[in-house]
């Protein structure tokens, strides 16, 4: 599991890779929140392209980042979702809060 954060003035990109579960979501969260809170970008993009496994902790991760981004006035886009992850996020109703894009 790893996280790679890159930013431009308009966009902060958080690229996740590996397995996301309850155990490793905690570390991802700290790093992502630091970046979101110190960024002035209006668009937060979370890239799931290299995520090999995710349980509902991944949904919690997106929800939590959405709440923080929203309080900073930014919108959230979740990209490169596999069919499976897209289905899980839809099951959680995330498409009402963030933009979901499949691979």
């Amino acid at each position, binding site marked *: 599991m790893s996280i790679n954060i890159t930013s431009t003035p308009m966009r902060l990109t958080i690229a996740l890779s590996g*397995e996301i*579960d*309850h*155990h490793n*979501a905690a570390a991802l*969260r700290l790093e992502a929140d630091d970046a979101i809170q110190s960024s002035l970008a209006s668009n937060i993009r979370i890239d799931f392209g290299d995520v090999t*496994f*995710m*349980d*509902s*902790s991944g*949904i*919690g*991760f997106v*929800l*939590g980042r959405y709440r923080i981004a929203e309080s900073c006035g930014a919108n959230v886009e979740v990209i490169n979702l596999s069919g*499976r992850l897209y289905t*899980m996020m839809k*099951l*959680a*109703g995330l498409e009402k809060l963030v933009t979901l894009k499949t691979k």
Partner: protein
Amino acid sequence: MKPVNTIKLELESRSVNESFARATVAAFAAQLDPNVEEISDIKTAVSEAVTNCIVHAYPDCVGKIYIYAAIYENGKFKVKIKDKGKGIEDVEKAMEPLYTTLGGERAGLGFAVMESFCDKIKVKSKPGKGTTVTLEKIFSGRSATDDRS
């Protein structure tokens, strides 16, 4: 019906064991020749059940999690995840999507995910005694009738 093969695992409720638990159960289920989707289904469901034991059953201590998995002749796979933790007061309520007693980063979707990725789920719980979640899934691959002595 008697299973053709079984395993038993006992692990401590440390979050670092979540990946070990799902990977081990998935490796055992591989004997049923599942496809990639089916393996992901089992991994995800087991991950949810084990996470529940860690965050809900034993919130302030490290307890034991017992996993029992069985393979049946017709491609049926059964996993039991048991704890001796604090139990669930209202199982029906706990299984409602988005319901969570923890808030914060927990989405309240553990049971909803288990339900959507398995064919059958049974939850037995007694406050103060513990919880047993039984997951069942029928795999579409070859059935486990061949010789496996």
